[in-house]
């Protein structure tokens, strides 16, 4: 056993990703600090994850009260919980088998909650209809994406299934695609134009890929991760038209739909635009759109909940999709409950409404002010350029790394941005994501920071980053 363990840890250090190595190093430093080792900082701040609670934002009280009451219904009689919490919990328990969150649910989720989600979508999209039959509640968007990939990505046969995927991107999507045996067809977002998605680039990528693989789908992230752009309606229309012409299945990752910071931008769903374009588009373009309880102001990543809505899926195919999803039995019930709250949050007049809306507003204000601060501070630093953060929960600034630093990184066998990130961690205790995890154009270097964090923490992040950046530049200039 001990031999195995040794071998295993050796392997970790050789073959794991830089991001995993950074996270491990961050944990090590934290442990050392706790043991009293002195460093020029008193704690490690990790803003490499998109994990709001880890970054210090609080869960919404109403959400946690309802979940706790569902878990332990004795709380319903104790009068410590507001009436609307009790009502919601009782209502939801009534929808669970045997009145318990410990029961399995239907494959697509608790029917009442699927219905709620469907209503939420219809309301969000104006007059566009949404049918509960097309919605599956899952263990979060990542799970939804994996399931949807399984449907059409064949891992056998003579030619691989290709999926167009943005650069920079959400790396776990590409990992899921690889795992399923598909191949990523990269299309570049245009950084100079605020990470704009351009159809001519889609077209270039697609044609370059044809002949090498069979591109069947197009993956878009709107608002962008890690890039923070928000697509305009016009841009979405162009993408839909392109997908229609090229017969691509659209995968719209819309988990940041609640996080739009630029008042001039608005989140418009792919589904809404598709329907408003009318036939033949609205009746033919196949779309799967994804949403989650992990992002927005809920930030409930650990409870794992999300949904996928299918549009224009062939009904026979849909039957097989059902069977495939049923292999998971069902999504975790607590995640489903939170999805219900997301779909139907407390309304004005409800006892919990004041607290709920105050908490939501506070988070939104925090994010908005963080965006401002990040842009101001990064904008004032030499050798960093950051495109406007219009949505999402990340900043993805470009670093202009001095040539001798790049040289030194090469000698150390590291990507320059990983080199930068690991020095940043060692010297200031700040852990950020490396751009190379997400993909970036050749010769450019980036880092990713999560901005879903309390203001004080954001300031501390920016302080550490600025101080480090200036000393890094002077060291290597």
């Amino acid at each position: 056993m001990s031999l195995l363990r040794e071998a295993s840890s050796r392997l970790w250090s050789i073959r794991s990703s830089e991001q995993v190595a950074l996270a491990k190093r961050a944990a090590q430093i934290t442990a050392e600090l706790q043991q009293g080792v002195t460093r020029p900082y008193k704690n490690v701040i990790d803003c490499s994850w998109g994990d709001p609670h880890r970054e210090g934002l609080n869960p919404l009280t109403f959400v946690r009260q309802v979940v706790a009451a569902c878990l332990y219904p004795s709380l319903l009689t104790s009068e410590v919980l507001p009436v609307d919490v009790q009502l919601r919990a009782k209502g939801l328990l009534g929808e669970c088998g045997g009145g318990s969150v410990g029961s399995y649910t239907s494959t697509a989720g608790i029917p009442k909650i699927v219905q709620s989600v469907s209503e939420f979508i219809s309301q969000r999209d104006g007059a566009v209809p949404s049918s509960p039959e097309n919605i599956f509640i899952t263990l979060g968007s990542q799970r939804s994406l994996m399931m949807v990939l399984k449907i059409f990505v064949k891992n056998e046969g003579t030619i691989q299934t290709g999926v167009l995927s943005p650069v920079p991107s959400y790396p776990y999507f590409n990992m899921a695609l690889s795992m399923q045996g598909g191949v990523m067809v990269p299309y570049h977002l245009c950084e100079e134009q605020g990470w704009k998605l351009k159809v001519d680039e889609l077209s270039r990528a697609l044609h370059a890929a044809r002949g090498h693989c069979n591109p069947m789908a197009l993956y878009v992230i709107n608002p962008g991760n890690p890039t923070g752009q928000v697509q305009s309606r016009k841009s979405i229309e162009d993408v839909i038209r392109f997908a229609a012409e090229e017969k691509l299945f659209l995968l719209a990752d819309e988990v940041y739909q609640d996080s739009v910071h630029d008042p001039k931008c608005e989140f418009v769903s792919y589904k809404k635009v598709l329907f408003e374009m009318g036939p033949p588009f609205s009746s033919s373009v196949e779309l799967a759109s994804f949403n989650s309880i992990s992002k927005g102001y809920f930030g409930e990543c650990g409870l794992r909940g999300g949904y996928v809505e299918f549009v224009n899926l062939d009904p026979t195919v849909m039957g097989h999709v059902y069977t495939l999803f049923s292999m998971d039995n069902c999504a975790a019930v607590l995640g489903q409950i939170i999805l219900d709250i997301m779909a139907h949050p407390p309304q004005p007049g409800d006892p919990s409404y004041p607290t709920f809306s105050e908490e939501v507003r506070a988070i939104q204000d925090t994010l908005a002010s963080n965006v401002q601060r990040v842009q101001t501070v990064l904008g004032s630093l030499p050798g960093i350029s950051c495109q406007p953060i219009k949505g999402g929960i990340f900043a993805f600034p470009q670093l202009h790394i001095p040539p001798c630093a790049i040289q030194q990184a090469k000698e150390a066998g590291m990507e320059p941005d990983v080199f930068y990130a690991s020095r940043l961690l060692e010297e200031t205790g700040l852990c950020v994501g490396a751009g190379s995890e997400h993909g970036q154009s050749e010769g450019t270097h980036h880092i990713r920071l999560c901005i879903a964090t309390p203001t004080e923490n954001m300031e501390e992040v920016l302080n550490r980053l600025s101080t480090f950046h200036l000393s890094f530049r002077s060291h290597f200039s």
Partner: protein
Amino acid sequence: MHRLPSSANRSLIAGAVEQYRALVMRPKSQTIRKESVRFKTQGPMESYGLKRYSTAEATVPATSKIREKTLTMETLNPQVKAVEYAVRGPIVMKAEEIEKCLREGGKQPFTEVIKANIGDAHAMGQQPITFLRQVVALCTFPELMDSPSLPEDAKARAHRILQGCGGTSLGSYSASQGVDCIRRDIAAYIEQRDHGVPADSENIFLTTGASDGIVSILRMLVSGQGASRTGVMIPIPQYPLYSAAIAEMEAVQISYYLDEDNSWALDINELHRAYQAAKKHCQPRVICIINPGNPTGQVQSRKCIEEVLHFAYEENLFVMSDEVYQDNVYAPGCEFHSFKKVLYEMGPEYFNSVELASFHSTSKGYTGECGFRGGYMEVLNLEPEVKAQLVKLRSVQLCPPVSGQAAMDVIVNPPRPDEPSFSCFQQEKTAVLGALAEKAKLTEEILNSVPGIQCNPVQGAMYAFPQLFIPPKAVEQAKALGMQPDMLYCLRLLEETGICLVPGSGFGQRDGTYHFRMTILPPKDKLNVLLDNLRDFHIKFLKEYGTLEVPRG
């Protein structure tokens, strides 16, 4: 037989992971450069797409302005088409339809659908274990720490779990392998359960129910083409997750039949037979065992486990032991032995070489918390490089629900005798398991009193899997309808009585035999009604098809 002692020399799945090469973050010198982008996760372009490029030109369809669907029955992944999942199959969909009809005031010859199709204890009225719910509620809403109505031991457990969570919130992602302190608790639990056999928390992976772990391990094991394609030995009857996953991955199913005449015992000669027969057309790499059995309810003897492990050792098979019913053993004289413990007792040559993955879950046992989607697996003797691949594979799913992890923690770390919640916990646990034992006996007895139904003892787990005599005329009619005879039987039963069972054909059975699976979970009064109605239906069914003469075997 000469064997190399080193575990590295008997890695079964080292050759099975090519498809995960893509998931290995490459050392920098190998970074892919394509279309002037560095993208570490883009692996397949380079690592296993190349051989396919040669045939590419011929098959890409021409672009057309008239849009047809991208995803049709022709383009659907054929492996998805092959998947069947009986426990949530047509009969269950039909049951949901009938329930909906009843809710909307529709007329049926019964007032409720009794779902005895799935091991869903709470849906059948079993009460949750108070302590478990208290701990998870406290984790969810820590303001309750100030509440005098919750016991201190529950608060201490919750506090400890939250300390292990990012930002001390259940809402943060955990490491993909699971929360550290929970993995340590699981390892300690396993050591205790197995009377001191060492367990290492580095070998524990929290999962989303046991199914998720089972699928992950199978994914690691399936590789090869033609005669080198991975063969997976599964019991027949089996839990349909196995056959569904095998179909989805296009592995080769190797059926070994459990011995119905011997209370569904596993017969080692049958393993040899199945293995030898399969070896001609595939590469058997893994044997799956479900103990206690689902749907068959047998509990494996220690001797039988030893035989299986010896067989796996000799034939270089990876062992997957599905032990989610380890707390559900009812029959006198039966006892649960973990595969790991037996392996240890067989000596270091076995314990240090046989690759084993064992699975547990929050959904069964005395807690029955299916909705939490909690579980874990323990792996043994995995080659380090392979284990790193497993970690990577698991990380693609981010992490299992942290609430399910917390529930798992309570199961492996229940109240101790000196703690305030101990007596209540103990009483609840005993009551649940006692009732299950009683219902297991009752189900077996009543079923055996019906002409044309024969039921083996329900030694463990949560199901009876009796054999049905279906009259030849009914068999013919089923054939004419294009369905399995036991499907016809179960559909009629559902439509006439509201009882929802799963036909044996969904689990696999010997040709010409028919079964159904029913859970023993309904409360005793409801179970009695269910069994009475089932008996009446069965007799009516026999009469209708002109036979009351039933061959008893």
